[in-house]
């Protein structure tokens, strides 16, 4: 299998289409005949990243890079950036509004869920500039 890459734009506040990028990513992995366990991990990571872009960012992109040894999901946005990454990584901590929480989002589990799904999880953020999240999932024989 050669290297495959796709990138999907994600708009802020677009709850109508939220989840579409992750669904497309999942379909790509399915078409490649990947194992359901790795598909689930990627789907969860991509979904949480996508929802964070919709809820918290000014818009951005989700990218998937697949090579024979790993799957890398990269979420990058145009801001506003995260003030305290350690706090944002804490399960249960969220800056989501009451309205967003009523919809069942903003449980403060997005970033911890992404980390849990990844073999390597990296987050960089500059306030006023934006946030970049990279999730790497290693592929085993049989995935």
């Amino acid at each position, binding site marked *: 299998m050669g290297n495959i890459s796709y990138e999907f734009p994600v708009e802020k506040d677009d709850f109508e289409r939220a989840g579409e990028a992750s*669904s497309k990513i999942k379909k790509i992995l399915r078409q490649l005949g990947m194992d359901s366990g790795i598909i689930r991990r990627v*789907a969860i990571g991509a979904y949480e990243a996508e929802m964070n872009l919709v809820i918290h960012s000014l818009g951005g992109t989700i990218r998937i890079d697949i090579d024979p040894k790993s799957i890398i999901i990269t979420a990058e946005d145009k801001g506003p950036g995260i003030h305290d990454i350690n706090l944002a990584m804490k399960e249960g901590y969220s800056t989501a509004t009451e309205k967003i929480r009523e919809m069942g989002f903003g*449980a403060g589990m997005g970033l911890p869920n992404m980390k849990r799904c990844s073999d390597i999880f990296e987050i960089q953020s500059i306030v006023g500039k934006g946030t970049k999240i990279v999730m790497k999932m290693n592929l085993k024989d049989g995935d």
Partner: protein
Amino acid sequence: MTVGQICEKLRLKSLTGDVGMDREVKGAYVCDLLSWVMAHAHEGDAWITIQTHTNIVAVATLIELSCIIIPENAEIEDDTIKKAIEEGIPILTSEQNAFMICKNLISIGLGS
């Protein structure tokens, strides 16, 4: 057990017609926090939630839940039903609350 059998035994109403009636239900999960469901529900679970916006379909599709059951006849947005039909996820409603739906699911043999 299939979605169709659960529908019949619990007298649930399908808002998505015949969509996904042959899907296998392996268990059930009750929660209204989407990230929590993403992290903890299992493939094949029937998901009982009071959330009715379109994103519930994305969650159910991504982690391959068997169906969504909406308790207490809560009103469901048309867009949600449309999307569920497109994705093949059955949405069922009940006049009973989440607790009674779980009780009935257990009594017909789910989770044992």
